[in-house]
């Protein structure tokens, strides 16, 4: 039944050869050139907010753009909001490169990369009246201000949680020992749940900063080779005790609910979801009111405007709206994070919300290490730190 029109294998070889020729041609043409454009330091921020363009395209974390506070915004400004939810910081960086969006709610491990890639523009904070009453310890931070230029409006912040099953882990831990100390963690062998992303290396660095001060770790995102290797060693030791690495919230929820894991690092979202299901989980700081003694990694998110935003006026309106007292209180309560707006604390449905989330306690946040992008430039003028690609590769080798 072989086809009489020649040999299919020969045809396959011809296609393959064609592919190679095309590839070599493209590689040759691209040779020598470099596409990298420098940062956006010379860009001008908007000087005056004009009339809205009637449309606004956003990238956000799930729960940041919800009808409750988006509908009133649309009615007030006439800017119709279309939102794309992203699951990870990497995804946000990729989506912003498409140039189809006006703005993004970026975490600190994405902001520097977006500024360097030139996909975002400086923000003129004078055009955002509500910015005046944003908590001052959120302003001019290394993850939202670059070379003295503001690149965004703070949205809210939170700490990553240490969560455990109250029936299996007693007494309630007050330290990340339960996950990192080889002796203590061995008690929960195969029952430990770890966030599956290279940024988790910072959790190990934070633990070492507290327990091995002679390593000299200042910032868990700025690690020289020696400090970095110590963190990797710790994570490789931990690997033997890990039950599951999670990156989808749903996966971790099912593991805790099904009893497959009993202790792990998590977000407010999973903790709420498990509480709602009636799972016997507890978490620090969520249910304990205090951080583990080493502190915690966390996030502080920033609304940034795209460099070539098609609807810049609407984006400025949005940045002002999302940190207005009422809207910022709504989004903070919905998501389970501390609001960025001081005045939001008077607007929350739960009157003690800000107290529960330590929104007004700068000392609490001093021990929360917000996600940052690891850069070769250590911030001390030296360029001997491990960069993001080193982190990604090391993470692959930890899991093996």
């Amino acid at each position, binding site marked *: 039944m072989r086809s009489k029109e020649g040999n299919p294998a020969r045809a396959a070889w011809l*296609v393959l050869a*064609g592919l190679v020729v095309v590839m070599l041609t493209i590689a040759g043409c691209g040779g020598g050139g470099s596409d990298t454009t420098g940062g956006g330091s010379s860009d001008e921020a908007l000087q005056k907010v004009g009339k809205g363009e009637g449309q606004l395209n956003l990238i956000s974390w799930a729960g940041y753009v919800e009808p409750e506070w988006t509908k009133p915004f649309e009615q007030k400004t006439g800017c119709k909001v279309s939102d794309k939810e992203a699951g990870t910081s990497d995804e946000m960086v*990729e989506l912003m490169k498409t140039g189809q969006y006006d703005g993004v709610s970026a975490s600190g491990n994405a902001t520097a990369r977006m500024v360097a890639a030139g996909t975002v523009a400086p923000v003129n904070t004078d055009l955002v009246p509500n910015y005046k009453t944003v908590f001052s310890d959120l302003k001019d931070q290394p993850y939202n201000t670059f070379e003295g230029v503001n690149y965004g409006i703070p949205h809210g912040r939170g700490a990553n949680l240490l969560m455990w099953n109250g029936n299996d882990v007693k007494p309630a831990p007050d330290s990340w020992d339960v996950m990192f100390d080889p002796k203590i963690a061995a008690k929960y062998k195969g029952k430990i749940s770890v966030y599956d992303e290279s940024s988790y290396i910072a959790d190990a660095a934070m633990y070492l900063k507290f327990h091995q001060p002679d390593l000299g770790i200042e910032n868990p995102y700025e690690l020289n080779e020696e400090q970095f290797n110590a963190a990797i060693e710790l994570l490789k030791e931990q690997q033997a005790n890990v039950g599951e690495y999670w990156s989808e919230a749903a*996966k971790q929820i099912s593991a805790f609910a*099904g*009893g497959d894991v009993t202790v792990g690092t998590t977000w407010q979202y999973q903790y709420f979801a498990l509480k709602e299901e009636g799972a016997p989980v507890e978490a620090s700081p969520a249910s304990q009111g205090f951080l583990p003694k080493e502190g915690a990694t966390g996030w502080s998110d920033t609304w940034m405007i795209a460099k070539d935003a098609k609807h810049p006026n609407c984006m400025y309106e949005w940045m002002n709206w999302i940190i207005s007292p009422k809207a910022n209180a709504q989004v903070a309560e919905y998501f389970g994070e501390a609001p960025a707006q001081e005045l939001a604390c008077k607007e929350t449905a739960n009157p003690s919300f800000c107290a529960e989330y330590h929104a007004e306690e700068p000392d609490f946040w001093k021990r929360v290490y917000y996600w940052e992008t690891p850069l070769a430039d250590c911030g001390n003028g030296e360029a001997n730190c491990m960069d*993001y690609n080193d982190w*990604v590769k090391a993470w692959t080798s930890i899991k093996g």
Partner: protein
Amino acid sequence: MGHRLAGLFQGRRRLQIGALLAGPIGWLVIGYLGSLALLLVAAFWSVDPLSGLTVKSFTLENFEALWNEPVYRTIVWRTIRTALLVTLTDAVIAFPIAFYMAKVASRRGKALLVVGILLPLWSSYLVKVYAWRTLLGTHGAINWALEPIGLHGPGYGTTAVWLVFSYLWLPYMILPIYAGLERIPDSLISASEDLGASPFTTFRRVILPLSFPAVVAGSIFTFSLTLGDYITPRLVSNDQFIGNVIFSNIANNQPFAAALAMVPIVVMIAYLLVARKLGAFEHV
């Protein structure tokens, strides 16, 4: 105008075929192979560490990194090993089912079996993997069923990956074997019996050689699908497959991800060459 156009094609067979195929072949070459080529070219480029933008100058550093880091060899080998194991498992399970369908079952039974095999393909892949996740969990159905006899299920891990893959790709193995067995005339089997061959000899000397190309054809599906998957390992184990590493690198280091993507392509080409030697393409 229409007449003139028709006149142009009149009697010119090559032109007719050319016009007919221009669309699909153009799509294949430009849309499909072109984008693939573009992706793979990136394997010879590098990335600016901060901005994640591609630097378009020729370098082999991605392949050197791939070669020098033992962890990638471990991952590649794990992926290939699992793909082979899943293929073997599916072949062993699928053959008797396909044989029963093709040679033993009544018309009605055959129809029922075909529907039964195709039915799982109607539900979402993710739903099936999450279902297995629930089954394999500590308090899942498998442990519940095994507990009374003092046994434990495999839990999450390498065994779970093997189980789930074998389940997911089984229909892709059964259908080609079924089609292959259907084509063997019953008279050949009768002739073998008439000449005094035992059922086992008939199977070994007649049925197996004639249906082997179909098994190889089915194995191309099970092998390549396992080779490229990254969601199943992620959901039922901590194992990293080639796809997982590509996924974790694609956002910030596309060139390295592209270099990694070369590995399954090379493996697949080798596999197809072996499959061709074994005659998988003779009867399709």
